[in-house]
């Protein structure tokens, strides 16, 4: 996107987000960090590390332990010109603030006839694979994406994360910024040290292909990449990046070309985001499809215990099965 960038540094997802946050705070005094365990500790995953030292307690604010209090007061802050970056320590705790989310975050702008926007970024840790406690592995993007008037984005790489964080903070819309815990330190890549912005509503074609379109986001992109190596098909891999709104053009263009589609997510199957993508593809491309869209997902149960989560979550193998299914389908 940004071609003028010259210097790059190796960053993982955490340090890339941290770099994006730091630069936005330096650029705009309205940007503040807001939530619990984000100050001196720098976040339980260290995403806000160093910001308290650099910007002080007026800009990096540790709050009382209440997700609803954090989100509700942040609405008031955004109304008054701040751009709070709220941390939800885990998606499973976000449910406690769902009232404020649906009825205030997603509604204040319309309710005031466009007079009061609510420019806030809600950073939310999500996803499985690290075998923590109950409710620390949730993947309920559906609860977010079914709510109108908010953006929901999910970077899968350090490079994406930094540029999308800057764009989220600068957006005048409320943006939920999903951070996959297992990806936090999964890999490093060279990331520009300067500021840059990436689109918030465009999917990215990670690898072009002609046989089958595979759609994934967050931690599942990596699994899909692993799966590609083992299948006898030329896969077009799309990193969705935005869950709301969906980049339907990119999806339809790709599936029209390949005639096959596999959607992968950690979310439960029933009413997971794959349901919408499947419906959209079938509605619009029935005559182009060589096979029904295949959903490769977790099962319709509560996130299970540590000893069985590997059987619950989709992985490269399950994705491979999905690709083989659509490749072998005959009417």
């Amino acid at each position: 996107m940004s071609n003028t960038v010259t210097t790059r540094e190796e960053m993982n997802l955490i340090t890339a987000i941290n770099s994006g946050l730091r630069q936005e705070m330096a650029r705009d005094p309205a940007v503040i960090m807001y939530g619990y365990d984000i100050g001196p500790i720098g976040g339980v995953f260290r995403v806000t590390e160093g910001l308290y030292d650099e910007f002080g307690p007026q800009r990096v604010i540790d709050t009382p332990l209440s997700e609803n209090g954090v989100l509700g007061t942040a609405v008031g802050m955004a109304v008054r010109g701040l751009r709070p970056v709220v941390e939800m320590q885990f998606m499973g705790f976000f449910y406690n603030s769902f009232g404020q989310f649906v009825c205030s975050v997603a509604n204040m702008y319309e309710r005031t006839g466009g007079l009061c926007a609510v420019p806030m970024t809600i950073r939310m840790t999500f996803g499985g694979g690290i075998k923590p406690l109950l409710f620390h592995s949730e993947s309920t993007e559906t609860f977010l994406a079914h709510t109108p008037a908010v953006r929901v984005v999910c970077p899968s790489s350090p490079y994406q994360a930094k540029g999308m964080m800057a764009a989220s903070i600068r957006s005048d819309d409320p943006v939920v910024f999903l951070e996959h815990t297992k990806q936090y330190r999964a890999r490093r890549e060279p990331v520009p040290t300067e500021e840059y912005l990436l689109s918030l509503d465009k999917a990215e074609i990670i690898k072009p292909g002609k046989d089958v379109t595979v759609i994934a986001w967050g931690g599942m992109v990596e699994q899909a990449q692993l799966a590609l190596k083992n299948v006898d098909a030329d896969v077009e891999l799309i990193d969705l990046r935005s869950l709301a709104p969906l980049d339907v053009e990119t999806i339809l263009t790709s599936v029209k070309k390949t005639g096959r589609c596999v959607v992968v997510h950690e979310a439960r199957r029933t009413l997971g985001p794959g349901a919408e993508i499947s419906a959209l593809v079938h509605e619009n491309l029935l005559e182009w499809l060589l096979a029904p869209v295949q959903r490769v997902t977790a099962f319709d149960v509560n996130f299970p215990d540590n000893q069985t989560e590997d059987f619950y979550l989709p992985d490269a193998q399950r994705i491979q099965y999905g690709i083989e299914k659509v490749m072998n389908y005959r009417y």
Partner: protein
Amino acid sequence: MGQTKWSEPKVSEDFIRILEPSGVAKGEVPNVAPEELLKWYRSIVRTRAYEDMTIRMQRRGELSVTAQSRGEEAIGVGAMAALQAGDLVYPSYRQFSGHLYWNAPLARAMAGLFGAAPETIVAHLPIDEVDLPKVQFMPYGVILASQVTHAVGSAMADQLQGSTAVTMTFTGEGSTSEGDFHDALNFAGVFKAPCVIIVVNNGWSISVPASRQTGSATFAEKASAYGLPGARVDGNDVLAVYQTVSEAVARARSGEGSTLVECVTYRVVDHNTSDSSEVYRDDEQAAYWRTLDPLDRFTAYLEGQGILTDETKQQEADEAKAFVEAAAELARSVPRSTPETMFEHHLQGEPSWAERVQRAELQAELEGRNPFLADHQPGEGS
């Protein structure tokens, strides 16, 4: 109709009071100019005229549901008279007298009651019209107590940005049971937000009496759980409300943080036009509280002070009538929302694929075409 009704004891009148029920002031009276007192009076008179009119409109079917603040009008005006230009209000739906005190555009509120989209109203009655109030009013909290949390965050933001604005918020006693109320007071206490939080204790939350909302004897004493000062005041006494809230505003403005003020009043009418309170309560308490009517008391006081005469009373009543009728006319002139407004003010920037498709579908329907057949789909890559 239920046979068993609630029977609630008389609420304690152990609170700050200046105006006796008779309208005589006792003790120290706040130093307010006669013209200002008349403005308070006017705000209450106009509020009654306005709300009586909206009730009639609801009966005629012009609007689907509306609520009244009858008997509680001293609170909105008494509290908001303590504000100054640049301050903010996050109200509930029963502080209309305060809105009128600050010249909030009445027609805009009424057009909202008609069911017009905020977009339509804003476009028709522009925000920069001459009588723009000097105090900023946020929409009232439909989700009860959510506005209290917003108010505290709003006040925190002002403080962080070095503003000296004070934020005032109102909520019913029933709404103190919501988690949002707890959050708001807790954050206010921790961050010393420049905020005045007013609990309007009118005894009822629709059909549920205040005794079901808390085990504490008063709502004011909830303040101490958050390290805040709390005060309890006769909410039907505009002088006492003004005085108590003024102190709270001064505290907030000088950086000492939030105050919780419980204004004790009584919902002498139904909850709203969908309600029939005779189903669940008898009229005994309401009848008693009608004898404490804030307008009657204030009128008696102003008459006693020679500020109000029969003549000025008549004149205020006539003006109030003309005023609300003019507002109604203006409100009726707001064009109906166009269906397309439903898509407005969701996300900014380029419309998404879904938005384009769905706007086109709606357009097709409006033109009597099959939205699903129409060849309007942007399709892929377009």
